[in-house]
């Protein structure tokens, strides 16, 4: 772009042995340096330290007193004098695998539900009707409400004794006795899914809507003239065209779901049925004073996420940076 504007004599350039391009690159360096430094300090460095801690026996009270213990927090095989072999560490910890199972179950179900519902909402909002602005404003409300607040609001609505949801379902005759939604092992995950779907479907809908609005209107007109059924138009025309937007929306949501912490911490505290990887890592790190063990678990979570993103981008051929499209 501007590189073509080399100094062929438009005006004298400021302090110039450098070409304009070099000068701009030098400025760019100084513009980027503070941001890169800040991100290094709060992201890269703490990540490296977390990984380092995961190979030590550091405790929260004495952060600098840890010794290097190799993979001990991950997997430690000791053979007793009696010849019995003991396995210890996160990789053989049933609580960890329970958390992995919960996280994956939660992520898959929530993202599928949110994509389908988000698509429905987006299709509704893409149609022209009276009061569309009002509906769009309404769906922004769940998105704007802090997660903690939505967790509390729903905890109250899902309350077993006084909750309005049990009341409603009883009145409609769908259930015959009150359900302890958040406390019971069988329903805790449904409760979490319900709240998460309520809270994040709007985000999904808006991203999909932005994709839908880039589909030229005359395509629909043409299809209508040819008498093609709208459902067929959706599968054959709309969906392929919005696929890139959809793929990006799904990965953003998926990453958010895989690291979920606050909703579960507040809505279903201490429920084994919903404890996720983030919850269990923090619990070990802070509450149980297994600092290094928790660090090992959060390192594993990071590796799982990184692998997932790499696979997704590679298999889905997703262009996240927008560089190649330009």
């Amino acid at each position, binding site marked *: 772009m501007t590189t073509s504007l080399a100094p062929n004599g438009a005006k004298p350039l400021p302090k110039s042995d450098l070409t304009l391009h070099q000068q701009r690159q030098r400025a760019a360096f100084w513009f980027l340096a503070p941001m890169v430094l800040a991100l290094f300090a709060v992201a890269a460095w703490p990540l490296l330290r977390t990984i380092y801690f*995961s190979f030590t026996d550091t405790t929260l009270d004495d952060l600098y007193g840890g010794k290097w213990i190799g993979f001990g927090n991950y997997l430690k095989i000791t053979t007793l004098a009696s010849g019995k072999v003991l396995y210890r560490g996160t990789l053989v910890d049933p609580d960890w695998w329970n958390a992995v199972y919960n996280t994956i179950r939660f992520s898959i179900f929530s993202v599928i539900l949110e994509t389908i519902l988000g698509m429905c909402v987006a299709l509704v909002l893409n149609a022209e009707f009276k009061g569309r602005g009002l509906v769009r*404003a309404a769906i922004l409300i769940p998105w704007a409400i802090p997660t903690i*607040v939505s967790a509390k609001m729903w905890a109250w609505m899902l309350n077993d004794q*006084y909750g309005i949801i049990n009341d409603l379902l009883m009145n409609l005759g769908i259930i015959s006795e009150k359900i302890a939604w958040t406390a019971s092992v069988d329903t805790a995950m449904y409760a979490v899914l319900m709240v998460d779907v309520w809270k994040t479907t709007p985000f999904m809908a808006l991203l999909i809507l932005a994709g839908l609005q880039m589909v030229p209107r005359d395509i629909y007109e043409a299809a209508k003239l040819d008498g093609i059924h709208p459902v067929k138009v959706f599968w054959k025309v709309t969906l392929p065209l919005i696929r890139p937007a959809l793929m990006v929306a799904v990965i953003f949501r998926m990453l958010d779901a895989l690291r979920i912490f606050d909703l579960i911490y507040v809505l279903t505290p201490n429920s084994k049925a919903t404890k996720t990887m983030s919850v269990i890592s923090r619990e070990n790190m802070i509450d149980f004073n297994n600092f290094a063990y928790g660090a090992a678990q959060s390192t594993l979570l*990071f590796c799982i996420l990184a692998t997932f993103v790499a696979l997704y981008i590679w298999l889905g051929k997703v262009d996240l940076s927008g560089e190649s499209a330009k």
Partner: protein
Amino acid sequence: MNRKLINNIAFYALVVVIVVFSVFPFYYAIVTSFATGTALFEASYWPKHFDLANYETVLGGRTFLRSIVNSVFIATTTVIIALFLAVTASYALARVRFRGRGLLLMTILAVSMFPQIAVLAGLIELIKFSGLFNTPWALIVSYTIFTLPFTVWVLTTFMRDLPVEIEEAAIVDGATPWIIITKVFLPLLWPALVTTGLLAFIGAWNEFLFALTFTLSEAQRTTPVAIAMLSGASVQEIPWGPIMAASVIVTVPLVVLVLIFQRKIVAGLTAGGVKG
């Protein structure tokens, strides 16, 4: 004709379902926040009471007001720092060609999708080492991890769309990159800055994991932590009325802001993902 009518009715029914489902929980929180005593425990769909006692309870306790002040200070400072660092950085990313630009952009995006828990152990060390533990600055520093990549990313997409001609004209007039940013681009970028700033503000206002971990005393809590910690004498005595009142207090300003800036927010949210 008849079929069209049925279709229309079905469509509007769907619209009503979407609106009710979106708005009802917040509406119900407001209804509950005005109910006290036994009225709290009858599931009522319509507002029957208008009792401010819950609000008095919440605001009367000294720490909740304090936590609102904390949240406002932390979120505002975080946003100012992030915008300041992001404006110059996104100019370089959007307007200057250099080697490794794509890689840098991808790295920034990767950081914005970081699981916060993965840096928690390292951040605890950093914050304790620098003596920031249990101060607002602990949160301001740690919130940079998600506000900065986000603001850089969105501002970069906005800046890419500014016309090249304006910049070329400025270069011909001998403007340095710094002058171009402050005198030429900044006036054009105000709408984008407001949107990104607002979104980053909401992110910082709502954050929970770091706020829970890096504060210890009640006086240092932010509002999400304060609400999560509101509790009664026992599990059976959760003070639902005051909790709902507190929830309404921290949510109403956000909802109002979001409704005012509706269009801009939608544009900002989708800028990162879809525009490319």
